[in-house]
């Protein structure tokens, strides 16, 4: 609880009232949502990335998340990944790569009327566990894959 309070205090200090309201989820305008989550993208391990994304307890594994990625990626500079959520009221999908220099690779937000599904290509520094984190009105869920990387792609 203490760390949560500190986070809020920090947020209120650096971002002012708007930031505080946004972090509390009380100010859900497009503008607030469009702010790049610096803390989450600069996080260097899974725990701090999750906490910066507002995940407070361990997300439940879900079979309703379709996560397609190669088991072996020859070229870490271009690893195709596709995630689709079948969980009702899915709002976002984030992809986190545990052994990359920064853990959070990308986060996608789906307004009402957009399918909670994304195809993209990401860089992987080395063999790693990769998580597709799905944010829904009913909390966070995750599907994970181990991807073997032959040639790392972060120096690319």
């Amino acid at each position: 609880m203490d760390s949560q309070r500190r986070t809020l205090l920090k947020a209120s200090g650096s971002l002012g009232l708007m930031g505080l309201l946004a972090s509390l989820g009380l100010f859900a305008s497009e503008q607030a949502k469009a702010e790049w989550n610096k803390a989450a993208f600069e996080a260097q391990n899974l725990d701090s990335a999750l906490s910066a994304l507002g995940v407070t307890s361990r997300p439940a594994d879900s079979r309703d998340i379709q996560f397609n990625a190669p088991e072996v990626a020859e070229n870490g500079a271009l690893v195709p990944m596709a995630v689709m959520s079948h969980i009702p009221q899915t709002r976002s999908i984030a992809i986190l790569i545990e052994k990359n220099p920064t853990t959070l690779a990308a986060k996608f937000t789906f307004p009402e009327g957009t399918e909670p599904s994304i195809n993209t290509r990401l860089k992987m520094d080395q063999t790693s566990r990769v998580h597709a984190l799905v944010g829904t009105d009913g909390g966070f869920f995750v599907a994970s894959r181990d991807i073997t990387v032959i040639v790392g792609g972060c120096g690319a």
Partner: protein
Amino acid sequence: MGNPMKIRAILKNGLTEVRVLVSHAMETGLRKGDDGAIVPAWFITELTAHYHDRLIFQAEFGTAVSKDPYLVFRFRGGDTGEKVVLRWRDSRGDTRSDEAAIS
């Protein structure tokens, strides 16, 4: 700034599939250039898509999105001939906006 995005938007069974290829170096800040010096980080941080004035998709990127980012997403309610508008902003504050008509 930057080169145009390649956007293809195709309506099929009520869903418009949008495929985007963005032209951007997406430098991680970890790579060394030919002169041996670190190439500074330079990457797209945000990308949005609108249909008319409706926000239909939003992405936040870190440095791990591949060079020349590629995205596919699908939304409901698009009509052929109408435009989908994509816009990105990068870590230097550069922005670019491109559009494509739904076919």
